[in-house]
């Protein structure tokens, strides 16, 4: 029979009266990812228990390692609530670990919530430590820097586990509302999506496709990126916006140095229109202050002024190296650096404005009378469910 898992939840256990709501959401998110396997999640108050059903361990662990709200998890051994049974399981665990033990020093961490159990937490630790050392002569106790830890918890049942694995932490996706991620093929925006999902935001994503000026490979790359972050966001719906006609109008009607900013303005406007349709209450971008011309303070002020929705920019104060570090961590980096550009050089001015005047830019935007074209782009979006 497959072992159950204990799932430790961190921050969400501290959220006062909202705790139940958060826990419910986290359970639902885990269940949803393991849908069709018969897996079930129970428990509360900082600890969930997962019965895997038909799900394989590798799948369960992949899901738990990518579900926000999970701080750590481990496979558990359930024992009868007697000293003898707990001792027998502890010895079994050591036997099972066999060669997999990464060191010879260990520590027992015991927690006794059920005060009717005859031994105190300290006594449980001493007892098990003694028994393990007797059976396995090469083992020794080190309570300060152990090579591995055997945890024992006496609650409604007795459970034992070792090898805790880290979850991603954060808050359960969906608890903070719904947002729309502006996803390009670059390094930053997938990381931004990951970071906002970590704070509990449920996400849809949109990508601006300008064929033939950008290639279908660029679109495939964005779909691939969306797929990579989708386990973190609890699934993702990618909207591909046909952007060529908008770009051509901008190129024809706008001053060259304003082109990039007006393009960004149109993107924000389109994102806002789509957000309203999808009931998303915020936009998310991968902008980092001063990284490129369109991300200077004044540029961001202008593009931000194009929407009433809040724009979350979780990377705003980060260095590129820090962003790359995170991109590597979530496995988007190698895809992001594939050589399929998301903007053609034709639409990239040599000297884009870096210090735009908000009023002048607003006038420039309004003189385009481009709203109907933006509506058309939203209407013709291609929806890809990942």
């Amino acid at each position, binding site marked *: 029979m497959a072992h159950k898992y204990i799932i430790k939840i961190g921050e969400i256990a501290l959220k006062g009266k909202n705790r139940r709501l958060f826990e419910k959401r986290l359970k639902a998110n885990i269940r949803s990812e393991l849908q069709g396997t018969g897996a079930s999640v129970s428990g509360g108050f900082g600890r969930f228990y997962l019965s895997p059903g038909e799900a394989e361990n590798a799948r369960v662990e992949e899901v738990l390692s990518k579900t926000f709200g999970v701080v750590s998890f481990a496979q558990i051994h359930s024992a009868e609530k007697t000293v003898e049974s707990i001792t027998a399981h502890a010895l079994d665990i050591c036997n099972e670990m066999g060669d997999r033990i990464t060191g010879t020093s260990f520590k027992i961490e015991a927690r006794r919530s059920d005060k009717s159990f005859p031994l105190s937490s300290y006594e449980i630790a001493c007892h098990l430590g003694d028994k393990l050392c007797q059976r396995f002569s090469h083992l020794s106790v080190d309570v300060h820097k152990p090579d591995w830890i055997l945890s024992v918890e006496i609650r409604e049942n007795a459970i034992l586990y070792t090898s805790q694995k880290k979850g991603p932490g954060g808050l359960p996706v969906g608890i903070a509302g719904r947002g729309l991620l502006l996803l390009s093929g670059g390094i930053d925006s997938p990381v931004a999506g990951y970071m906002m999902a970590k704070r509990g935001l449920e996400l849809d994503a949109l990508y601006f496709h300008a064929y033939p000026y950008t290639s279908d490979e660029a679109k495939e790359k964005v779909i691939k990126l969306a797929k990579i972050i989708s386990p973190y966001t609890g699934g993702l719906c990618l909207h591909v916006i046909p952007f060529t006609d908008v770009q051509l109008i901008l190129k024809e009607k706008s001053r060259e140095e304003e082109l990039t900013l007006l393009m960004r303005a149109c993107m924000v406007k389109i994102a806002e229109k789509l957000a309203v349709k999808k009931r998303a209450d915020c936009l998310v971008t991968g902008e980092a202050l001063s990284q490129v011309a369109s991300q200077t303070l004044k540029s961001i002020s202008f593009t931000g002024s194009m929407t009433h929705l809040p724009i979350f920019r979780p990377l705003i104060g980060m260095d590129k190296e820090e962003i790359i570090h995170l991109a590597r961590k979530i496995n988007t980096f190698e895809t992001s650096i594939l050589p399929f550009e998301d903007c*053609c050089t*034709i639409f990239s001015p040599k000297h884009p404005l870096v210090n735009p005047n908000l009023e002048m830019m607003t006038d420039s935007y309004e003189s385009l009378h481009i709203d109907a074209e933006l509506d058309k782009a939203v209407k013709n979006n291609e929806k890809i469910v990942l």
Partner: protein
Amino acid sequence: MNIVYLDWAASAIPDAEIIEAVAEITRLFFGNPSSRHYCGRQALDLAGQDRHTLAMLMGCSPGHLIFTSGGTESNNMVLRSFMMKKRKNGLVCSSIEHASLYETALYIKRQGIPVAFPVTGSDGFADPEKIYDAIDENTGAVAVMLVNNETGAIQPLEDIVKAVRTREAEFGSPIHVHTDAVQAFGRIPFDLNSLNVDSAAFSAHKLGGPKGIGALYSRKKLSPLITGGGQEEGLRAGTENTAGIHGFALAAGKRIENMDRELPAAAGLRNKLIGVITSLQGEVLNQGGKGFSPYITAAFFPPVPGEVLARTLNDRGYAVSTGSACSARNKKKTRVLENMGFSSRDAASALRISIGHSTTVQEINSFGEVLAEELEHLRKAAGVVSVGS
């Protein structure tokens, strides 16, 4: 959709009769040439005959020819063989080489071995004097391709070999000269004997033969890249691709047999193509065509990116490429042209149009019409108001 194929330098349209012959050989000569029984001997004999045929067509001894998987492997084998030498392992490599040589040279450089990349002129030709200057007492090998795969420029190999031999005499020790002949053999008159190079790389699928088969000529002993069963005199292990070898020999034979007819026909088509390009205010590298293979034409329509133009032409049924097909999936797409001194914008506007023995005048004419239409759209998008006025 009917495709007009103008990307022969990436891979030629295979000759139907050659592919049929390859299938037939696969069926009949299935034995492993290393086996001692009749079936094995039969396969071995056939590969031996094909080796003789190819050696004769290339102008070398059959004993100096080993079969490989293609140009990339052959180029790698030469360079990596020199990398393993303890002394005199320095390398001089022209800056316009195919990625299989250039990237390997960069890899060798990263191992701490001296590698020089002499600058090439904006006309696309390596300069023998610059190569002479780049050679020093540690240089063990010089690599210069014969026909550039992006521009079609036929490199002045004879003068380069002379410059190397002069340096060789000055330093009193041999310098190996390698040439990547993938775009030359079977297309332009070619004779290893008169080229006086020490090694050369070949590929079958550029000639209308099958993919996955090529050859390395080397008159000097090299180290194997692949070890195993001792095939190819211990220089390239792995069961011989008997059918592929046969297809290679047939394709090379056919190209060379027909060269008197195919080469002037290609030159005619190339001239027509240049006429089309210049009438559309495009630029070509091989204006006049002297010193260039007629099979490859590099055209430029700045500021229209070649990648976008190739995409729209593809949508209309015309297969062309930007730069080398082998580099089209990485960021160094414009390396060769930028190393020739092109600005990144101009390099990015390059379109490689490569023709083959079955390309027709009608195809070039219709290509010209479609090119004109697509350029009109793209130039308008790029903000080019009135071209040429």
